[in-house]
């Protein structure tokens, strides 16, 4: 009797790409829930716009590149990028912001570089930076929770006030502040933390990148705070403001654009954390997540090269 042949192994594997992506989406639900509670329907509209644009853009690009559409759409990677982008932008931005950002992220940052697995830059962050640089006015007007007006974020406000010469203590008495960071915005950070810890427990992500990002941010922040607590905000402020936890658990951990080995991942994470602190404190933008991540993406191949496994030598 004759049989077809192939290479070993012949054991089945249970893990699939869309399972990984699905669990990432599930881990984002706490944050989505909190943000919906704070900002209302606007968030859902942004999510809807981003997700539908992402799926359409991905289908179109897959069709142009003559790849099987259903299989690649079902891997849910486009949805993950769209959701992260939609959560990153202010909820009150016009409809064309989320659409153009998603189009840039999926078409240019992802497919023009080769599609899933080949893009060197995090698509969501690339889309965010595109929007931030092209439409700064729309991208810096943030909704106030439970209200109809718009304002700057706590990070933005702090940066401006520090520039004007006020001390940290004076700034933190502003009504924008809650316990440690932005009022009500702190809960969003905690929601991201919760989701991130669940991903860790499910072994979807490893502890190396989140720990390294948080450490890379905390250590400089703590050092500066201890040196001069009137000029530099506390590490807890940094951890709970902006998208720090989102970055540590969801954005920096994007496997396609991060470093490969565990040693490399630690270096990658610390790089991101330190860059976040540097850009927030001395750079031109109030929140630095996107820039820090993109810069670290640039460095990922070099990090991989220098942390590659060497031949084991016994003495």
């Amino acid at each position, binding site marked *: 009797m004759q049989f*077809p*042949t*192939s*290479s070993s192994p012949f054991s089945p594997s249970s893990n699939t790409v869309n399972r990984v992506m699905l669990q990432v989406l599930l881990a984002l639900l706490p944050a989505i829930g909190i943000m919906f509670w704070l900002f209302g329907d606007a968030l859902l509209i942004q999510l809807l716009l981003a997700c539908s644009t992402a799926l359409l853009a991905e289908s179109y690009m897959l069709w142009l590149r003559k790849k099987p559409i259903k299989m690649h759409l079902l891997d849910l990677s486009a949805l993950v990028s769209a959701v992260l982008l939609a959560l990153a932008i202010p909820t009150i931005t016009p409809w064309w912001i989320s659409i153009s950002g998603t189009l840039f992220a999926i078409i240019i940052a992802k497919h023009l570089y080769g599609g899933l697995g080949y893009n060197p830059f995090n698509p969501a962050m690339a889309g965010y930076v595109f929007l931030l640089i092209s439409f700064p006015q729309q991208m810096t007007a943030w909704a106030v929770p439970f209200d109809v007006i718009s304002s700057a974020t706590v990070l933005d406000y702090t940066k401006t006030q520090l520039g004007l010469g006020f001390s940290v203590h004076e700034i933190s008495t502003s009504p924008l502040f809650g316990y440690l960071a932005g009022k009500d915005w702190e809960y969003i950070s905690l929601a991201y933390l919760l989701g991130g810890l669940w991903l860790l427990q499910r072994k979807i992500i490893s502890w190396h990148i989140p720990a390294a990002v948080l450490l890379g941010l905390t250590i400089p922040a703590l050092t500066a705070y201890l040196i001069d607590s009137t000029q530099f905000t506390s590490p807890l402020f940094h951890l709970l403001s902006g998208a720090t936890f989102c970055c540590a658990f969801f954005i920096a951990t994007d496997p396609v654009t991060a470093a490969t080995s565990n040693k490399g991942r630690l270096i990658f994470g610390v790089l991101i954390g330190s860059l976040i602190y540097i850009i927030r404190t001395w750079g031109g933008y109030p929140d630095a997540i996107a820039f820090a991540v993109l810069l670290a993406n640039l460095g990922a191949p070099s990090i991989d090269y220098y942390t590659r496994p060497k031949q084991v030598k016994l003495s």
Partner: protein
Amino acid sequence: MLLLCLIFILLGLILGYAAQHLKVQGDPIVEQINALLPQTQCGQCKYPGCKPYALAIAQGEADINQCPPGGEQTISALANLLGTETKPLNAEFGTVKAPAVAFIIEQDCIGCVKCIPPCPVDAILGASKQMHTVIASECTGCELCIAPCPVDCIIMIPIANKPSQWQWSTAHD
């Protein structure tokens, strides 16, 4: 301004010195090209051997796609080395053939030694009026011995596909 001029003059002198005293003898590119060629010395490229062909490539007189024994692999490697586009083998110079070695049909051999000088690697053993034979392990398959034989007793036998020479490929089932 003056300082700038002085710096430039100094740099110019350093470059001049380097050009004279650190000059590389010969043209290393020819050796590098030769190292990529299969050393069959068959002449299919219309040059009398691999080194002359390498020289011709280095001087721009020959193209990189004239070597059939080297095949696509050699063309790609040459393109890589020289920073040019890879191109398909030029059929004017021959086609890629399966690896083969020459074999002398002993019943027909007349011991005329006409096949021995053309062999570039001395792979044919024989003397006048003695039986000639090809040392198969040394034969590069260049086929230069076939034409000179007056009784056409040399044939090319393809190297059999044996398990010991087989390797995995990425082709899927």
